[in-house]
């Protein structure tokens, strides 16, 4: 006997595996973390046997100076990294866009390279480049006679903060450039020609035509990279381990420490939920922005 299904039913069946996957691998963990965060939970003890403490863990998080310090660093890191990545990415995108087709192809391949490297490998590469004794950067600065001895890139607090940002900019400017290249390609060539005939010089064309027309793409790219930067973990874990002290600790790396270094699962969970809430808020802005862009296109 043949079973006949209506189209919505078939569609639902097709969606079911992905749906189950998302539930099992995403939402279950989030809910579980939420439940953990309400318990005074050490190590991996069964949460059901542990005392329920309501929002005490959250109170601890918000009272902790470490939380505020890591939040400050995370926000600073996110702001600096995304702004610099936008600047560098825009430069690379413009350069790639305006050269001949074959050279543009080569440049695109070069640009995408840093982004392809896994984050943890990137962190390791930069750890060596910044190494105080054998690092290439220190060596170059000394050879040029700019400093007497190699700077302590990763152990001097101010230097460490900006070294981390530098490493992130190096890696993620490329994805920004790729985003912006898409936006640039979507601007019709006729508009540039019209601007030329109208009398706009190249800098003016960039400011009055290219930039405004690229703005929706820029906003989406900034939000996308911003959300990514807020969650930064691998780079910190690999490059500084949050040090010196806790200067370069991000929200995510700190949550990780609560879990796995201090073994405080309840507190770590509260931490993770707070980070999660911040990112969900930003993602909501991002999604509504994308939806508006779609409407523009129509």
């Amino acid at each position: 006997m043949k079973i006949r299904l209506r189209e919505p039913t078939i569609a639902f069946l097709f969606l079911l595996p992905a749906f189950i996957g998302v539930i099992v691998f995403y939402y279950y963990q989030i809910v579980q973390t939420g439940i953990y965060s309400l318990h005074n939970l050490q190590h991996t003890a069964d949460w059901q046997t542990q005392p329920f403490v309501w929002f005490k863990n959250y109170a601890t998080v918000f009272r902790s100076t470490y939380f505020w310090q890591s939040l400050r660093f995370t926000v600073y890191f996110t702001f600096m990294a995304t702004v610099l990545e936008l600047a560098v990415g825009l430069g690379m995108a413009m350069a790639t866009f305006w050269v001949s087709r074959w050279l543009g192809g080569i440049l695109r391949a070069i640009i995408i390279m840093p982004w392809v490297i896994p984050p943890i490998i990137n962190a390791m590469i930069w750890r060596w480049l910044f190494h105080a004794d054998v690092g290439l950067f220190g060596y170059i600065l000394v050879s040029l006679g700019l400093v007497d001895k190699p700077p302590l890139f990763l152990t001097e607090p101010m230097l460490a903060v900006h070294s981390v940002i530098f490493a992130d900019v190096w890696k993620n400017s490329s994805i920004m450039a790729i985003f912006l290249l898409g936006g640039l390609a979507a601007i019709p060539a006729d508009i540039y020609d019209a601007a030329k005939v109208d009398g706009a010089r190249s800098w003016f064309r960039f400011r009055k035509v290219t930039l405004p027309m690229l703005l929706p793409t820029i906003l989406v790219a900034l939000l996308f990279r911003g959300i990514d930067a807020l969650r930064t973990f691998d780079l910190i874990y690999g490059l500084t381990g949050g040090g010196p002290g806790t200067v370069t600790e991000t929200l995510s790396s700190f949550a990780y420490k609560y879990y796995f270094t201090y073994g405080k699962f309840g507190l770590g969970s509260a931490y993770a939920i707070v980070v999660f809430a911040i990112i969900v808020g930003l993602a909501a802005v991002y999604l509504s922005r994308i939806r508006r862009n779609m409407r523009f296109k129509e």
Partner: protein
Amino acid sequence: MASVTYEHVTKRFGDVIAVNDLSLEVKDKEFLVLVGPSGCGKTTALRLLAGLEEITEGKIYIGDRLVNDVAPKDRDIAMVFQSYALYPHMTVYDNMAFGLKLRKMPKSEIDRRVKEAAAILGIEQLLDRKPKQLSGGQRQRVALGRAIVREPKVFLMDEPLSNLDAKLRVQTRAELSKLHQRLQTTFIYVTHDQMEAMTMGTRIAVLKDGILQQLDTPQNLYDKPDNVFVAGFIGSPAMNFFDATLVGTKEDMYIDTGSFRLKVPANRLPALAPHLGKEVVFGIRPDNVHDAEFTPPGINPARVPAKVDVTELMGNEVFVYLVTGKHSYVGRVDPRTNMRVGHNVEVVFDMDRIHVFDKATERAIR
């Protein structure tokens, strides 16, 4: 207001020759149409004049001024693009004012010009809108307005009507002609549509493969095409062509297509005499193929038997697709015709309106 002169202008893109040794003079206040099939170099010719492409060889003058090395903005031209190329982030007003602001024109003067152009085009109520809120026809007007406010010496238009629907296109065609009369400025207009060219142009330049085929008034292009290409390109439905041989004697000559034979009129004999015995292309427009029952007066008739293949009733006329021997051709006959599909009929060719081309060179024999 200015004339435009192309002097042996060539443009190459790598190995491709887009414009090949183009020499052309556009008179002051003329509405010149560049027409040809896609890829014929008409748009490139226009972009060379605008300064958006660099000239490979030759010279272009606007008025008496050589403009080869002059930037687009300093050529005193305005251009309307096929896509309109409006700035999507600016209002209609700002779109029109942009070029003037860049020229540091006083605000009051900009305002006067924009309002005046908007009034001419009937878009005063749209000045605060963004291009996305406008219909295709309205956008087209804004693009025109942006050109008008500049008060340029020459208007360049690159297929400005091809994104409009058929009805609006016909309407806008007439409005563009009116605008040209009103502004008394040189217009250079690119199109692939021979109908647009015929209805608007003071003169028409027909291009093919980057080479100028003929430059003449619409009526002359229609009546006296220089070669087979122009004859076939101008006019709809297109001219009927037959491979033929000139037979007989210098005094009594015939066009022999293999399917039928036509006596050459006496006034054509001297020109055709040197081609006696040679292969030619015989051409006749559908307008000059008549139903024998409704032969109009004052023509020089030659009767040809034919079989009706298809008929298309257009209301004021009927297109009949005819077959004689191995040849198929189209006639545009009186709507009262009794011709029906499958009928064996007689049609009449107006021998005063025949075209004969050299088979080898495809040039008209006159």
